[in-house]
């Protein structure tokens, strides 16, 4: 019996909203924007953290990255602690460490068939790649020899740059220019890597891998950019990190995949709350819009309310008549906002603070829609609308029938 009334009241609500199309539409737009912002921001933020976590997952949980840190000395100049073969021995001696892999890394401009690509060059013992990057492999050719100073393995985006028809195959040449133009070398492609994506702070697909000797030749330095330190198990990571930090103090920066993931996750969860709050504020503004619209509507329909009372509608029923208009407004706004937010989130992915530039390197920013988010985006606007409509609806339900019937 209740349901008969509920469905009828919703039908009345829809007719009432259709009677004032423009006003209803504007109110719905307010709700829609609030819901869209919530969906778009939270989905992008979810996507960012998922992307970062996924890229961290490619590097083993037993891996530490050791870089030399910038030291600021008096006078404002800076010196950098220099990492050498000695450090390989020192690090290798730490209990729990199974392997120390030194590497060179530099941002470079890569020229392939007349197209310039911003990428990285990484000098490393190429035989270590499969152990370092889970699931990496070659789509063509072979890993170059450690001792061949002119051979390289290239990432998939260098072999076929996006937005270009150029295709680089095995035994073709790529040319590399160091940022700042301090060096220039050409390499013979020996192997092409499968598309792999981002790991830590690098995009493997935009990277040229060369042997250690080739890197020393190109970069003109015997000092390493850093080390990958592998431990026996993931449980050793913390103790090894502590040992390295006590050994080197502030001369090096030590990172491990797990701590990066958790710090990214904490940042991204804070960001989710923050962005959600922005959406919440816009929904609040929309709620004020609903309250305002409904007040106007209640005043305009004073006589109608009087008629409903005369026809025997009880206060609660009149309350339902008006609240259901708010519910319909919130529901339509929520559905449209969720759809809009879905598309918006793909746009936002590109402009998120961590979505581009070297810092983000790791992350794919494909938005992630969880069932919770969708449910929230659909239901929260309804709850907001009901709260916003409660006061005007209550006022309608408490009108004096005789006074309302005389209203002109």
């Amino acid at each position, binding site marked *: 019996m209740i349901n008969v009334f509920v469905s009828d009241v919703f039908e009345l609500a829809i007719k009432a909203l259709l009677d004032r199309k423009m006003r209803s539409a504007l109110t719905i737009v307010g709700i829609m924007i609030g819901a869209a912002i919530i969906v778009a921001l939270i989905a992008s933020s979810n996507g960012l953290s998922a992307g970062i976590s996924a890229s961290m997952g490619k590097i083993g949980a037993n891996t530490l990255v050791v870089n030399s840190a910038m030291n600021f000395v008096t006078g404002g100049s800076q010196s950098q602690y220099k990492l050498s073969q000695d450090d390989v021995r020192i690090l290798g001696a730490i209990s729990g460490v199974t392997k120390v892999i030194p590497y060179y890394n530099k941002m470079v401009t890569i020229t392939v068939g007349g197209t310039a690509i911003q990428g990285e060059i990484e000098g490393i013992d190429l035989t270590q790649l499969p152990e370092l990057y889970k699931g990496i492999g070659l789509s063509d050719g072979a890993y170059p020899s450690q001792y061949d100073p002119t051979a390289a393995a290239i990432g998939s985006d260098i072999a076929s740059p996006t937005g270009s028809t150029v295709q680089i195959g095995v035994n073709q040449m790529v040319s590399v220019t160091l940022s700042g133009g301090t060096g220039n070398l050409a390499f013979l492609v020996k192997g092409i890597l499968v598309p792999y994506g981002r790991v830590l702070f690098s995009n493997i697909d935009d990277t040229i891998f060369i042997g250690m000797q080739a890197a020393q030749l190109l970069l003109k330095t015997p000092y390493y950019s850093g080390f990958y330190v592998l431990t026996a198990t993931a449980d050793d990571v913390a103790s090894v990190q502590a040992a390295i930090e006590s050994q080197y103090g502030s001369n090096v920066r030590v990172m491990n995949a797990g701590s990066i993931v958790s710090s990214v996750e904490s940042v991204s969860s804070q960001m989710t709350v923050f962005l959600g709050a922005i959406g919440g504020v816009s929904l609040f503004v929309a709620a004020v819009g609903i309250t305002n619209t409904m007040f106007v509507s209640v005043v305009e329909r004073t006589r109608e309310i009087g008629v409903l009372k005369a026809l025997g509608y*009880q206060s609660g029923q009149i309350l339902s008549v008006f609240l259901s208009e708010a519910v319909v407004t919130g529901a339509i706004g929520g559905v449209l906002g969720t759809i809009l937010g879905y598309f918006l989130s793909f746009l936002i992915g590109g402009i998120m603070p961590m979505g581009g530039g070297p810092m983000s390197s790791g992350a794919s920013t494909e938005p992630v829609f969880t069932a919770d988010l969708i449910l929230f985006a659909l239901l929260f606007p309804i709850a907001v609308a009901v709260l916003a409509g409660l006061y005007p609806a209550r006022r309608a339900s408490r009108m004096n029938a005789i006074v309302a019937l005389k209203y002109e």
Partner: protein
Amino acid sequence: MGRPLADNNESPHSDGEGDSNLQPAPIMYSESRGDTKMNRVGVVSVEADQVTKVYSVGHVNYPALRGVSLKIERGELTSIIGPSGSGKSTLLNIIGALDRPTSGHVRIDGVDIRKLSDNQLAKIRNRKIGFIYQSFNLINRLTAVENVEMPLIARKIPRNLRRDGATKLLSAVGLAQKAHKRPTELSGGEQQRVAVARALVTKPAIVIADEPTGNLDSKTTRELLNYITEVNRTMGTTFVIVTHNPEVSERTHRVISIRDGMIEKEQRLQRIDSFAK
């Protein structure tokens, strides 16, 4: 005539009787009146017993009704006339369960409304009373048949039953063809007939009409009166009509004149059609 109707001695009523009792409890009357035209066995639809109504504005009290007693029998077509400010609207609101008396008793279909809650009054209005207004008071965004269905929605009557009932009543007032027109597409007379159908759709014990012909020309007024008398005769519906128009009051069974919050005189014009018993 002019005799106050308060001297009914056959049913002394105690305070609170009928409170929260929404079931009809018709009071049967035997022949007890001196007036031969009232000498008939009838069922009382509405009974007012020493009803007063005082409005307070600030510290000042305005007595709108000062002891009105009347009985309206089922099937009776009664008109109430009186100058503006005489208290007839107040009386109508109380008979219509829109308002409670300050003192005295009002029984609608046997239920004393004085101590009912707002929601109980709403239920009484929905089940026992139909309203017709001078300005029709239809909801313009709804079609004629949807307007007629409105009281049945409050009563949670399923859609198909509702539609059947509303359609039947629109046919009864000659508007079957215009059931799906909106009020704005109908003439004033047609709108008022929709309002009549809406008032009747719940099969009320009494229909209260406040200047129902006030916005109609004389031809439409006659047409509407024809429908009202026809409904009264065939369905036995009780009508109380407040009017300024003698053409309207002439066609009712009884005319009650109100002045200064009291019944000034009462005039029996016709017998109540026997069908109404």
